[in-house]
């Protein structure tokens, strides 16, 4: 096994007989708003994938100048090294409060938080629920991979029943550790919640739907009619001790059983009436 030093892509592509001879048109490229550095995420981690989607949206909507992100402690605490927008790093669990402070002072900017399940559903659940209850006009991007990733695999509030983690070595026992918390279903009834959806990115169509959901959420923020929560079923190859490909199966067969994917709360039609002008 030799080490390939070259990064020049053309040399490596084995064959490309452009039979037709027409010039190629670019269909997809890394968004410019995603900073061109190696991301520290483990191979196959959905964090970097969602970072990519967010930065695609910000580039396509051309709102790099209008957007402020908040990333609290968790694997994604380094998000500001990868997202070419103004960002604030927040204490563990406090992103929703920090975002409230920003949005209240900059009501016409897009503000989003990017939180893991430990951050949002455990230590930060009060801030999360109250920000939503106040209807803060922010987007909460919630990556639910059922473990604390950064600290290497402890049980989280969304750890599945029976799921082994470093702090539920015999599997999560609901009598001792309670049941996985379904945040989206929990907060959807709050009047302040404007748009709540759960998506997954374990296959191409899921990625398309997730991007559409995030796109909606950014647009809805202009309406100033409440909080958007986009829960994304994540993965954790390292701590689930699975290959990225095996993770896609685990997400499909296990995670989605407890965390069904789909829209949980959609804005009413009349609320979206003036979306164009907003």
């Amino acid at each position, binding site marked *: *096994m030799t080490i390939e030093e070259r990064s020049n892509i053309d040399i490596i*592509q*084995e*064959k490309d007989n452009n039979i*037709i001879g027409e010039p190629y048109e670019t*269909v*997809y490229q890394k968004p410019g708003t*995603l900073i061109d550095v190696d991301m520290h995420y483990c191979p*196959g981690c959905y964090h970097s994938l969602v970072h990519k989607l967010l930065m695609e949206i910000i580039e396509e909507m051309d709102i790099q100048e209008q957007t402020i992100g908040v990333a609290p402690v968790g694997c994604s605490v380094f998000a500001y090294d990868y997202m070419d927008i103004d960002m604030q790093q927040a204490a563990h669990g406090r992103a929703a409060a920090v975002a409230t402070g920003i949005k209240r002072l900059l009501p016409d900017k897009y503000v989003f938080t990017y939180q893991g399940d430990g951050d949002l559903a455990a230590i930060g659940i009060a801030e999360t629920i109250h920000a939503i209850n106040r209807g803060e006009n922010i987007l909460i991007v919630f990556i639910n991979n059922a473990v604390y990733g950064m600290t290497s695999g402890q049980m989280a509030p969304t750890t599945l029943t029976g799921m082994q983690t470093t702090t539920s070595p015999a599997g999560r026992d609901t009598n001792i550790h309670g049941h996985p918390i379904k945040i989206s279903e929990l907060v959807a009834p709050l009047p302040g919640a404007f748009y709540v959806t759960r998506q997954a990115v374990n296959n191409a169509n899921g990625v398309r739907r997730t991007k559409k959901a995030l796109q909606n959420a950014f647009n809805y923020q202009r309406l100033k009619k409440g909080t958007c929560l986009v829960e994304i079923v994540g993965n954790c190859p390292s701590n689930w001790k699975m*290959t990225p490909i095996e993770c896609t199966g685990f997400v499909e067969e296990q995670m989605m059983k407890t965390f069904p994917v789909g829209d949980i709360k959609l804005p009413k039609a009349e609320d979206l009436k003036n979306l164009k002008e907003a």
Partner: protein
Amino acid sequence: MEQQTIAASVKERKVKGKVEINIQKCKGCELCTLACKEGVLSVSNHINLKGYRYIVANNDLCTGCVNCALVCPDAVISVYRTPLKKKSADKSIGKEE
């Protein structure tokens, strides 16, 4: 992903695609190989400077459907397509048999 012969798969296709992979940034997670329906992508027997077995593409089979780029967590894949206009369609492969 057995190697499809070029003639068979190219015959019915209307669009010719191509992908480019930034192999030094690729982490060899292989999610793109799962997403690609045309068998374009496979794991190389060589490793990049980070020690990952990066992905290589056989672009003859590529339709430019973007699935691989969608699922790539690290945005290392760029996708290109040859726009088959009406005029050039006559000399398209379909007419060759």
